[in-house]
């Protein structure tokens, strides 16, 4: 009976006072510089979120999604991955992009859909893509679909490794939420990964909610980690507000995923979605403010790591103040710069559907141009790079 099986324990390294939970354990195997980078990256994500949420509220962005409470999960796990590992994301993984080299300009180009956005202004805000910089697949809004993509990518990496045994081996990683794990794609992806021995890490961000639906209405089993066992996949539950635990778990998962020619691993990072689901959501409609408060203050990945840094004498109020101000200034500067840029050229509307423009697309492009020329007052083409000539 599931009810008599004890719940899977949660792996933790650092307690909420920023001290080692188990004093007899050696301290985390990371340099001070690494930890400071993580901290600044978490701060950057948090401040970026706050500013962009407000920017959306002012109508300057169509949409935004923050990841408050989950900065430790994304930054910590991304830090443990290899530089060329392949990642598929859901959409609340800004920290992954930040940790893996996205600049403020990269973020702002996508969010404002300007001509520097590699997605050519086609995607909603926060649907980042970064093959060159980060190895991350372009984000889609569809939930769960990216999980089997990581399985397939992992199989490709495995075959590549067989052909080039001297190259450093790589893994694929899929990030998804506890809600997305209810989709059929989760099942297909994990089952296939186990059967085909794929070097893939499945990272579930269990933040307690899928929009308004609490986990009590999402599943009755012991969270997501317990499901891995049924697929024959080694699984671990981790405190997602403890960046050291997240880092160590991911690092070990990566090591094991590459063992014996490939082996999938499931990690469930427990956290709490401190913010609203998105700018289109008011979470006070379905949960109490008091419930949020504890997670905002006490079990918060940023304040927890700050305490650690202060305990180590690596951080103080002055540095905190200075860093926050600098990040805020940089973000606002990049935002204004990005807003001033032209939008991508109009041709981007028809390009990339097929490798080459089809006859149908050529006809439709000509028809669009004809209409725009005939009714010039009805279309504002100046904001697009090259204006009408860009079509």
């Amino acid at each position, binding site marked *: 009976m599931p009810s008599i099986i004890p719940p899977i324990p949660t792996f933790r390294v650092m307690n909420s006072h920023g001290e080692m939970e188990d004093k007899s354990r050696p301290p985390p195997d990371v340099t001070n510089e690494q930890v400071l980078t993580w901290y600044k990256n978490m701060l950057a994500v948090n401040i970026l979120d706050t500013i962009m949420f407000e920017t959306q509220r002012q109508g300057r962005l169509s949409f935004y999604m923050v990841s408050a409470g989950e900065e430790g999960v994304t930054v910590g796990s991304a830090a443990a991955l290899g530089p060329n590992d392949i990642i*598929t994301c859901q959409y609340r993984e800004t920290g992954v992009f930040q940790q893996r080299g996205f600049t403020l300009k990269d973020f702002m180009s996508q969010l404002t859909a300007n001509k520097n956005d*590699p997605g050519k202004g086609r995607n909603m805000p926060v649907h980042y893509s970064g093959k060159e910089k980060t190895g991350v697949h372009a984000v889609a809004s569809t939930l769960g679909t990216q999980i089997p*993509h990581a399985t397939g990518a992992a199989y*490709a990496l495995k075959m590549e490794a067989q052909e080039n045994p001297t190259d450093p081996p790589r893994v694929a990683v899929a990030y998804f939420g506890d809600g997305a794990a209810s989709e059929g794609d989760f099942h*297909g992806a994990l089952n*296939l990964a186990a059967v085909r021995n794929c070097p893939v890490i499945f990272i579930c961000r269990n933040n307690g909610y899928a929009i308004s639906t609490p986990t009590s209405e999402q599943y009755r089993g012991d969270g997501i980690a317990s499901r891995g066992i049924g697929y024959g996949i080694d699984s671990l539950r981790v405190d997602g507000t403890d960046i050291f635990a997240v880092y160590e778990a991911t690092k070990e998962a990566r090591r094991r995923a590459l063992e014996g020619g490939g082996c999938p691993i499931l990690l469930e990072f427990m956290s709490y979605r401190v913010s609203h689901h998105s700018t289109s959501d008011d979470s006070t409609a379905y949960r109490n403010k008091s419930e949020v408060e504890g997670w905002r203050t006490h079990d918060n990945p940023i304040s927890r790591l700050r305490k650690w840094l202060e305990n180590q004498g690596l951080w103080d109020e002055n540095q905190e103040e200075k860093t926050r101000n600098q990040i805020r200034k940089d973000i606002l500067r990049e935002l204004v710069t990005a807003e001033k840029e032209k939008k991508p050229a109009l041709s981007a509307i028809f390009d990339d559907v097929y490798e080459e423009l089809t006859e149908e697309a050529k006809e439709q492009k000509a028809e669009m141009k004809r209409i725009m020329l005939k009714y010039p007052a009805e279309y504002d083409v100046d904001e697009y790079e090259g204006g009408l000539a860009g079509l």
Partner: protein
Amino acid sequence: MKSLRIIRPTAQVLRAVTSSASSTATGRQYSTSPPNARLNIPTDFSTTPILSHSSQSALRNPELSAEVRNSTTKRMNLFQAINDALSTALATDDSVLLFGEDVAFGGVFRCSMNLSQNFGSDRVFNTPLTEQGILGFGIGLAAEGMRPVAEIQFADYVYPAFDQLVNEAAKYRYRDGTNGRGVGGLTVRMPCGGVGHGALYHSQSPESLFTHIPGLRVIMPRGPIQAKGLLLAAIASNDPCIFMEPKALYRAAVEQVPVSSYTLPLSSAEILKPGSDVTVISYGHPLYTCSAAIEHIEKDLGLSVELIDLRTVYPWDKETVLKSVRKTGRCVVVHESMINAGIGAEVAAAIQEDKETFLRLEAPVKRCAGWSIHMPLLYEKLNIPDVTRVYDSIKQVTEY
């Protein structure tokens, strides 16, 4: 749901169906025709002009390179031609992988016979029974530059993977933009169409559902030569391709197929038979029905009918069709799947929309297709357009 996939009986009865045309076996056959029928007689695949019965006719095709035209042919049925194409692709490109439900032992229709043994179980393998998983997996492989060939056991079971096709495979390059990651290496094979007794879930032809998805190429071959050339083109294509195989032709359609590797152009229709009075447009299995109907009506009414095989139903070759209809002024579109929002709707609309063609039209465009129903076991013969219905459709547009 999947327990209803009775693999062996399907293959056995399929053999019975496809061999019945030439046999005079006693006992009731599924495809017996009414005793006095003149039109609705089963296709004689050994004489149909749709197939190349000699090496010379097979190699005459100007779409083949001079090198292929000077090479040899081998007698193959449709599943053997597909097997030959897959074998060729696996042998020439290390990034080609083949997977799906039951492909390792050769596939329930024998299309992947011996491929796992010859190319290794890392490249040709079974997957768990999960269509969304299979296509999600294929997309992940293709995004890393592989050329996965995924098999969906029956087109009727592609729907669990629809999200992966519509929202992922088709949109991948578009949303990634200048990053340039695409899944063009992906080819999805699926047996489709009526087989005499497939009923609701072993007979469907969902091609028009795919033609409403920008980003995908949707292909259906009519016979072994086409199957090999178009499948190799689909695998080589940098756009994700849906390759639909009319399963009733797997064993029935036999012709001389060039042994060398060759591709046939995608998004290019083929004029199978030139004519001047009426244009008949079709693809896949009904081309045999059309050919038989045309033979009769040309004799009966002294007409000259042009027959066009679309081959790729999206993005389709509008120019070849419009050019033909401008010449003939009359047109019938024939397909197995239902009339409503089918390929015929798109073709007919494109014909009337083209100013020049519209002015040349002498009669309304006629759609001759499956009724807007589900495929009923007992009534399949009355649902799929038969020779009589195609004959009558041509007569209607001629007499208008």
